[in-house]
């Protein structure tokens, strides 16, 4: 919901330029042209109900095509090669499929055969949760649909949604199907003869946020947001077959793959019952709370790690229950939960554990993190004054089969934080900064490779009536450290005392506005393209469409109740 009356961004920008008071960096005007050198300018209009565009090489000719998704229709605009009509013809799609149903989950795949048995790039759709249809693409046309699977009872959300439900689970070159049910996923493994194995049902912790009514509040919305995570597939027993790891709040299940018979067993090869663990540890009860040691509640927590500890290439299982850490050995056929290979016990309030090679011997060591006691009195004190909590890490080196009985190293991280009152006022400051942004025009920008030089990153800026190109204006992206947490501490093996000061984050907090633009402030763009119509709430996005090492550019100008209009800048090969 928009908070208050807004002014046209273009008007704000123009006014700000005149007054010289804008937070938007001033841009130097440039000699503008009707197109960019080396690029063809292809204006387009799309139906107003177009919800998204997907870039895909649907005819497998090495050129990227455009698939458009509308409320009840999926269409393809094919890119033609070096002919007289090279590029795209956006006057009408080359082919379309009308999707009928209240719930459509769609996906694309190149791993399904057409009626002649030839692999054909296909559109797939789970229709009304009941059946899966396939539309192969032949000669740049959607062919008649084929029924892939029926008799399903699935939930794929209402309307037309991208559903990543077609995936090669068992690495046999054939796509299998993952069908979402009510809190479950049904895995249908496809056989070479196009039949399917008995589906495997695994539970899934879907993230569902639903609001159906409001008693008093008028500013709230009703509706639903839904996020279904992908299944986790990786080889955990060194047989080169992807295994299935299913984690929910209640269970941790592993299904080991088999080359004979059904790919996955109907019941897990091994499991950990998280409900039973919580039952054993005890549930949170306010009356059992020790007000002098609130962090003592960590004794009720548990975590599970499935990772190779002993270096045999087969994942082992590390189970932490409060301060007790058990190591179970994995084998090619499963996990031996009858007897832990090792049990370590730690006093204090254990926060978490993880595996990371500390002594650089190539084997993962056990890091056990403890936090000091925090009382209710501490919390009351921290309401008004700044505080600090020490978190300690104990490193148990990996000795091959198991971890050392005693830690070889202890690190301390002092977490310093401001008072709750200060945090609250900082939160308000941040909110005010964000609110102030409403008065600032944030110009759409995009970082692209326009020159074809791989290391060069150029900046595109979309103004109301112009696209400006600043060649080589951007730095190469920063390299992300492998272990971000330890890197954040500036970790080194020679230092055991560290500090994280949240106060510093707050003191230095600032919302960057037009940060890319500031890099080209006062600079004349190398190129500028005049737009034939004014941009309104538009955007500029780059993508590589014709594999010539240069990015192509979509300039989206406006969206009205009649149409979507824009411009494609397609590089000339």
């Amino acid at each position: 919901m928009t908070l208050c009356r807004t002014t046209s961004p273009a008007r704000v920008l123009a006014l700000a330029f005149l007054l010289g008071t804008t937070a938007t960096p001033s841009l130097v005007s440039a000699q503008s042209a009707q197109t960019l050198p080396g690029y063809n300018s292809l204006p387009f209009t799309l139906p107003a109900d177009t919800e998204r565009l997907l870039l895909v090489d649907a005819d497998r000719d090495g050129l990227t095509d455009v698939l458009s998704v509308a409320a009840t229709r999926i269409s393809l605009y094919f890119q033609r090669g070096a002919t007289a009509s090279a590029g795209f013809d956006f006057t009408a799609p080359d082919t379309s499929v009308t999707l009928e149903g209240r719930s459509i989950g769609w996906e694309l795949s190149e791993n399904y055969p057409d009626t002649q048995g030839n692999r054909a790039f296909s559109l797939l759709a789970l229709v009304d949760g009941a059946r899966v249809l396939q539309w192969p693409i032949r000669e740049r046309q959607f062919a008649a649909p084929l029924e892939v699977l029926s008799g399903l009872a699935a939930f794929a959300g209402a309307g037309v949604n991208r559903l990543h439900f077609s995936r090669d689970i068992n690495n046999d070159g054939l796509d299998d199907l993952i069908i979402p049910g009510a809190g479950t996923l049904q895995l249908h493994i496809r056989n070479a003869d196009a039949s399917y194995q008995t589906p495997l049902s695994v539970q899934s912790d879907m993230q569902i946020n639903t609001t159906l009514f409001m008693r008093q509040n008028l500013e709230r919305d009703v509706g639903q947001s839904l996020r279904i995570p992908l299944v986790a597939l990786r080889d955990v027993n060194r047989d080169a077959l992807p295994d299935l790891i299913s984690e929910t709040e209640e269970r941790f299940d592993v299904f080991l793959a088999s080359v004979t018979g059904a790919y996955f067993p109907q019941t897990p090869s091994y499991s950990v019952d998280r409900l039973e663990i919580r039952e054993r540890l005890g549930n949170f009860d306010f009356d059992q709370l020790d007000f002098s040691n609130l962090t003592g509640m960590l004794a009720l927590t548990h975590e599970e790690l499935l990772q190779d500890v002993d270096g045999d290439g087969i994942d082992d299982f590390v189970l932490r229950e409060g301060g007790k850490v058990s190591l179970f050995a994995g084998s090619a056929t499963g996990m031996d939960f009858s007897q832990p290979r090792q049990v370590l016990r730690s006093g204090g309030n254990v926060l978490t554990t993880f595996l990371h090679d500390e002594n650089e011997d190539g084997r993962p060591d056990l890091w056990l993190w403890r936090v000091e006691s925090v009382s209710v009195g501490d919390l009351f004190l921290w309401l008004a004054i700044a505080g600090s909590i020490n978190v300690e890490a104990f490193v148990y080196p990996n000795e091959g089969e198991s971890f050392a009985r005693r830690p070889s190293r202890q690190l301390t991280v002092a977490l310093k934080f401001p008072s709750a009152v200060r945090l609250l006022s900082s939160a308000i400051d941040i909110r005010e900064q964000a609110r102030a942004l409403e008065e600032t025009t944030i110009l759409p920008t995009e970082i692209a490779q326009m020159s074809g030089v791989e290391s060069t990153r150029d900046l595109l800026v979309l103004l109301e009536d112009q696209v400006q190109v600043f060649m080589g204006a951007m730095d190469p992206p920063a390299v992300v450290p492998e272990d971000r947490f330890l890197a954040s501490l500036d970790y080194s093996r020679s230092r055991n005392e560290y500090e994280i000061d949240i106060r510093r984050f707050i003191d230095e907090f600032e919302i960057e506005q037009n940060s890319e633009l500031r890099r080209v402030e006062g600079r004349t763009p190398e190129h500028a393209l005049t737009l034939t119509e004014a941009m309104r709430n538009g955007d500029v996005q780059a993508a590589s469409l014709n594999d010539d090492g240069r990015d192509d550019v979509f300039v989206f100008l406006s969206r009205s109740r009649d149409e979507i209009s824009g411009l494609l800048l397609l590089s000339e090969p």
Partner: protein
Amino acid sequence: MSPHRRASCAALSALLAGLTLTASASLQAQLNFAASEIALGEWPDDVLREDMDGDGRLDLIVPHWSAEAGREMLIYLQDEGGRFPPEPSRHVEIKPEIIAVALAELRPAPGKELLLFSGTGVFSLSSAIPSYTDNLRPLFDWPLVASVPDRRRVLYFPTLPDMNGDSFVDLLLPGRDGYGFFKGGADEQFALAHAFSTVNQELDPSEVPLGGARLDTSIAINEQEGIVLNVRALGTTVFEDFLSSWQDSTQTTLLEAQHWLPAAIFANMNDDKVLDIVFMNIGNDLYGQINILEQASDGGFADVPDWRGPIDTRGDIRLVDVSGDGLPDVLRIIDNSNEWTVQFFLNKGGAFALDQPDQVMRFSGYDLTLSVTDIAGDGRPQLSVSYYTIPVVNAVRTASIVRSQLLYASSTAPGEVFTTRPDFKLDENFSADAVRGLSSQIHLQSDLDGDGRKDAIALGPDGAIAARAIADNLQFADTPFWQHVPTRSVLRFDVQDMNGDGIADLLLYHSTAMTLLVSTP
């Protein structure tokens, strides 16, 4: 709830069942309560209270999930002595397709039935019949705004209203494309009487303001500076996520989808004894806009709102009757850290002057809560305000904070709805050893001793719950007239007449269970 925990609750319940609590002998009022304890599930806020067996007493409906049984509604029937059994009287299985439930009097059999809402239709079910067979009845099709059920949790619609005064419950349901108003009739009949959108259809999508800039937050690792929090403002565009590549290697979800629309609320806005529909959206002038769809005498609604008014939508905007005339007024609360501005807009026969609040009040403190209560029941309500302050000296010396409770009497002075200065103020210090008293605000909505005046019911620093009388001058009595020392910590409590005797009963929510104190003769 584990079997073990349920067993322990059952044992305690059995003990409590034989016990009738009496107010402390040192206190003035003689109140008797039957005490029961039941196990709470994962969703204590979703415990419903309705008469499920038609005996005139409210029963408890507790949502529950277990790996073995899936989703259930556990129904605890209240007996004539005001007690609840330790184990559920009825179990109602909720099938996986069901998204939400509601309770309503639908069938001739005594007690309320369940309305079950799937993504595509609405059904009825009696909890008295322990099966779906010969019980479940499809009522009508409706594409609910939510289409996917939660594996563990059952959502619910609150008590359903009779919107047109014909003594049948009606339904105001959010759908995929807008709301539907369904008129209820005899024999579980519902008819779609009006469909409307809460989105302003007159606005061209390109005109809809996109709000403030989007923020892109990332944590960068910098060898010199360590962790660097980077928040970048992104331009607003209708083309966000519009273009993507088919083979995106960063994909982590099977499905991501969302669908939201402005909420519609039913309320009697113009004193014609039937309920109207109120919602807020973006007006043609790109300002926030309150819309009222008035229900006509024939039960119909117009195609366009009967009244519209522009409003700045920042803050919380609620419908609350602050004037005591029985019609909801508009309350707007804007917070700025510990500074709060409250604007009152009075309902003038189904219209508002939203450009000029009838009164503005300002408060300074944390976690402001506001409510309106008619302490004397004379139609001249009082404004109750509660907030916290954290004096640094208190925090450092005694590790304590202050909770302030203020009462403002209604006012007839020009430009005032309530008096400008509080008629009553109570500052309470809470230190670390009195933290139990902080778990719940002072309750001012109920008359516990049946004298016709609302009482102040509150948890004390020691966790005891006590009721004090409130005098005509709005001062709380020095000593409570009733006190109860619970055996378990009370995290929050509620007050409601559960057995229809006109005397308020108490529902005490503990960590894993709830205690019901139902008044007895």
